[in-house]
């Protein structure tokens, strides 16, 4: 049964590749050949089902009127072939009755197949429409997600910029004014001078905190060498903060002319290093940034415990976010084992794959 089904599928595939005219011609020729065979084989050898095949094909692949025509032809051929052998039933009326019955059977087959074909076509069309609608919806949702993430990034950048350019400057002015006040109080020999000096110290601490926040919000300066500088600084800060050896390997300058792409790459590196330290308990992390054949290659390798399977949820989420960032910039992200036995993340982005909207930033 399976073999017959497979044969049917192949025949259907073959037929779908042909034009209507070709099929119509093939059906006509088949009917003529079957008629001839019918005549040659004589009256006792029934070919009624064989006649039905080209009719069925015509009903499905050509159109109904043509199939009716073939039905009529088949019935006529059969009757003529019988007549040529001299009325076996002995009566014209019986011959006519049998011929009409057969014609009606073929017509019924055509009608049934035609209806089935219409249903099939409608269903296919609805599936296509639904698929198209879904595709549109997914594209729209992806666009919205991207817009949302871009808006969030823009917002972050803008807040970072504001903190750096306005708040920090304002605090600097405040610190200077307090320093002036402290000087005046001191000149008058007042003990409050010390309090004023304390205010200066506090404001300066506030400046340091605000700068830290601004840096966190806008880690990559919008210059082509911004990513290199940001990663250098990040490696240095990470080494200091976590008392590990985090280094940036970057032999030749890597310039990234899309600030948005640079920021995503930075965040990917940041997440990977965070994972290495928090989950992998790594003591040495190497961030490598290099120019690849058609773009940029970023990798983060560590000497930690490597990835566990299954992963804890928090880490899993981090990986998903990294993957999402990579997708947004058109990059490929892969994980493997580092030379030091820990995890190695590789993120490669081809110039050609970077979505056009990053050009307009």
């Amino acid at each position: 049964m399976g073999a017959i089904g497979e044969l049917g599928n192949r025949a259907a595939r073959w037929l779908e590749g042909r034009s209507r005219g070709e099929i119509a011609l093939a059906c006509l020729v088949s009917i003529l050949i079957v008629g001839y065979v019918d005549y040659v084989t004589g009256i006792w050898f029934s070919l009624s089902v064989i006649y039905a095949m080209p009719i069925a094909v015509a009903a499905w692949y050509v159109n109904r009127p043509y199939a009716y025509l073939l039905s009529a032809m088949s019935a006529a051929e059969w009757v003529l072939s019988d007549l040529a052998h001299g009325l076996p039933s002995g009566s014209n009326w019986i011959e006519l009755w049998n011929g009409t019955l057969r014609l009606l059977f073929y017509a019924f087959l055509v009608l049934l197949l035609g209806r089935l074909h219409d249903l099939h076509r409608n269903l296919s069309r609805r599936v296509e429409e639904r698929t198209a609608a879904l595709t549109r919806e997914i594209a729209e949702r992806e666009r919205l997600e991207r817009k949302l993430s871009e808006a969030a990034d823009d917002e972050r950048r803008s807040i970072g910029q504001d903190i750096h350019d306005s708040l920090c400057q304002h605090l600097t002015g405040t610190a200077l004014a307090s320093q002036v006040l402290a000087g005046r109080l001191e000149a008058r020999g007042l003990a409050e001078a010390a309090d004023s000096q304390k205010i200066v110290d506090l404001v300066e601490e506030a400046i340091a905190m605000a700068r830290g926040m601004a840096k966190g919000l806008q880690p990559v300066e919008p210059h082509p060498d911004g990513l290199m500088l940001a990663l250098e600084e990040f490696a240095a800060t990470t080494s200091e903060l976590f008392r590990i050896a985090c280094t940036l390997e970057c032999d030749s300058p890597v310039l990234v002319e899309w600030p948005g792409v640079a920021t995503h790459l930075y965040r990917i590196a940041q997440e990977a290093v965070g994972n290495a330290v928090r989950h992998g308990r790594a003591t040495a992390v190497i961030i490598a940034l290099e120019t690849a054949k058609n773009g940029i290659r970023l990798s983060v390798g560590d000497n930690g415990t490597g990835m566990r399977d299954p992963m804890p949820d928090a880490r899993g989420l981090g990986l998903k976010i990294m993957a999402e960032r990579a997708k947004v910039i058109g990059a490929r992200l892969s994980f493997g084992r580092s030379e030091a036995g820990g995890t190695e993340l590789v993120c490669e982005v081809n110039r050609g794959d970077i979505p056009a909207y990053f050009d307009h930033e």
Partner: protein
Amino acid sequence: MNEPIKVFLVDDHPLVREGLTNLINQQPRFRVCGEAENVPDALRGIETSDPDVAIVDISLKGSSGLELIKQLKALRPRLAIIALSMHDEKFYAERAIRAGARGYVMKRESTKKIVAAIDEVLKGRLCISEQVAAGLAEKFIGGRTGNDWPVELLSDRELEVFNLLGQGFETRQVAETLNVSMKTVQAYCARIKQKLKLSTASELLREAIRWHEQEPQR
């Protein structure tokens, strides 16, 4: 009594200018003789008020304080310039010093350091943190100060790479231009860094650009 030392302020934030003015004027030996918030105003103001010291914020709205420092250095070689910035000295101090500033003060430390910085630069000394000074000294010992470059240490091919980087070529473009693989370019870059005692690729890029800018004068 001696005339007070005249100080000119260039900063685009009014509150910072006000604070600095009050702080500097608190010292009887100094007097703020003018202030500006952009490059054209600064050039005009400095022309008319003839200060001894200029304090310049390196990131001004719409223009670069570093460019202003370069211009001032050319126009008034005797003017002592102190670069003031919200940015970390790690990344800008060296550039400011190379542009012609004699000191670099981070804004968050300005309350304690600005007065001392003015005194220092007036004595003809550099006012930079020990870290930055150490970095500069390292390069000096490496044989490179000002316009003096140990580029003769570089092989012809390395020099070619260095030159192309200075013209703003990327690794990929350098590789295409010289018809070699990117790995080869990366290897050249590693050797250049070693020979010029540069620790990072961004430093290499900066040096290459600087060398390229100065090359026509050679």
